[in-house]
């Protein structure tokens, strides 16, 4: 790892981090308010209507309980878009984007190994994701406290929720970086990573909304986050192992590919 490159990466992304962090805070803050204000009314509205009920429990999250509302905050498309800015955007631009612009050339002219560049970018991305999810959870706890429903939340389970959320998005970050070190241009790296993320999300959405296709969810990384269950104290070792395996495979692939790649002059 290279500390100078790490600091520069943090500095280069500070405005985006602040903007996305604000979005994640607002989103985390609003969900407990929705639950505390409209949760009961919405529950009564959808009960008895199987179709509405199915839609209201998308991805294991809902607004009928505080745990459900916080879980929804982890699986909602809005979260995916915000976290995707770093899990997908940062990771794919980090190497392929810099390479396309010609700026990687200048960095690699310095006495820094490609492994050090990769590790630095991986750690910076990991820190960004960790901070964003932490901000999101802090906002939810603050909001729940202000709404007077904090006693419904098992605070001891929040670190586990933060961990599984971080591991999920770390999977995409590691995949994005692996794609990024494998291509000279941004488009294929971004395309491959986005396809994996969206396919995974689609499997979760379809499986969640259509009971006959529930088996598809097993093939979605989002399904293995199981935020509501984690908040209920049921963290699955198998899910953690799956995330760990995906991250390890992506990191290993990048670790092997990047130093062996020929970096021709940027066009």
């Amino acid at each position, binding site marked *: 790892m290279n500390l100078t490159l790490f600091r520069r990466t943090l500095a280069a992304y500070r405005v985006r981090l602040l903007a996305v962090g604000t979005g994640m805070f607002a989103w985390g803050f609003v969900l407990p308010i929705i639950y505390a204000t409209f949760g009961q009314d919405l529950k009564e509205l959808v009960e008895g209507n199987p179709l509405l009920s199915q839609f209201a429990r998308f991805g294991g999250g809902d607004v009928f309980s505080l745990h459900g509302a916080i879980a929804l905050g982890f699986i909602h498309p809005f979260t995916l878009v915000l976290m995707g800015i770093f899990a997908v955007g940062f990771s794919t631009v980090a190497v392929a984007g810099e390479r396309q612009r010609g700026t990687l050339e200048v960095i690699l*002219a310095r*006495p820094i190994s490609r492994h050090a560049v990769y590790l630095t970018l991986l750690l910076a991305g990991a820190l960004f994701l960790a901070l964003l999810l932490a901000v999101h959870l802090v906002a939810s706890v603050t909001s729940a406290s202000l709404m007077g429903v904090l006693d419904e939340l098992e605070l001891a389970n929040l670190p586990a929720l933060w961990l599984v959320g971080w591991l999920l998005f770390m999977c995409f970050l590691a995949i994005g970086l692996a794609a990024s070190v494998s291509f000279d241009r941004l488009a294929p790296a971004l395309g491959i990573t986005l396809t994996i993320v969206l396919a995974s999300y689609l499997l979760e959405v379809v499986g969640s909304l259509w009971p006959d296709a529930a088996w598809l969810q097993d093939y979605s990384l989002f399904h293995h986050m199981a935020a509501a269950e984690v908040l209920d104290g049921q963290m699955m070792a198998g899910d953690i192992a799956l995330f760990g395996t995906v991250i390890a495979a992506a990191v290993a692939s990048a670790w092997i590919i990047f130093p062996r790649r020929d970096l*021709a002059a940027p066009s």
Partner: protein
Amino acid sequence: MVPTPMSAIVTRGLSKTYGARERVLGGRGEAATRVRALTDLSIEVRQGEIFGFLGPNGAGKSTCIRILLGYLHPTGGSATVLGRPVIGDAAEVRRRVGYLPSGISFYDTMTGEGLLDYLARLYGRGSPRREALLDRLELSAATLRRPVRDYSRGMRQKIGIIQALQHDPELAVLDEPSEGLDPLMQHAFYDILDELRRDGRTIFFSSHVLSEVERVCDRVAIIRAGRLVALSDVEELLRRRRRRVEMRVEGPPPSLERVPGVSGVESREGILTCQLEGDVGPFLAAIAGVRVFDLTIEPARLEEAFLEFYTDDPPGAPS
């Protein structure tokens, strides 16, 4: 080639082939498409010299430079830079080298000063030459406080030169360094190179501007289609060049056919033209008794030597 203790760069049989298998459109199967970017290149760059590396676009200059700096992996041969192998020790090699890529790109939102500071920190050492370079290239403190996106092409090139040299590297690899510099700044840059040479630094210099190579380089290598076609002192290369001679004489023209170094003699209406190669003494002796009104010996130019290597069939081409 036996490297001397004073070798800054040594390549032995360095080769690079870009290979890919591709499906033949409309065909039945696959065909291998292989591009030989560099073939069996053996050169030695001595410490303390300015070494010109010449060749047209696509000749393999950048491929060679990128192998030396660890961006590309050779498919054959070996290379050492400052005594260290470029494979496996590339980061240590780069610690002692300054590199200016052709058409360098920067982070546009950073200021010139911030960028130079950042790039110097990545070396993990100070920038002892920065102030002198800024002074020579006339980059003021006010200019450095502006973001790089506001810089002209010439100013970017100046920043590129400074980032490559500010940490006082033992070897500077400069790819088209004077690109975008105005004539005044080009001369300032040549002065910088002279100064570096006086301080014992080595410059590996790739350029299309042959007059500049002639002006600053001690030795040159000319490559063509990835192969070395000439490696020589600039002076030696020029000495061997044929120069065009034209003279106006009174009376019968002198017989020059048998004079050593003279060829292509033509005489018409009192004007005699010929080609002169090497020592001018025998030629002057041969015309000693002739009444010469006018005599022009065009100086040898590197450009002509360069073009000579490129007018023949490419190496390895079918005859």
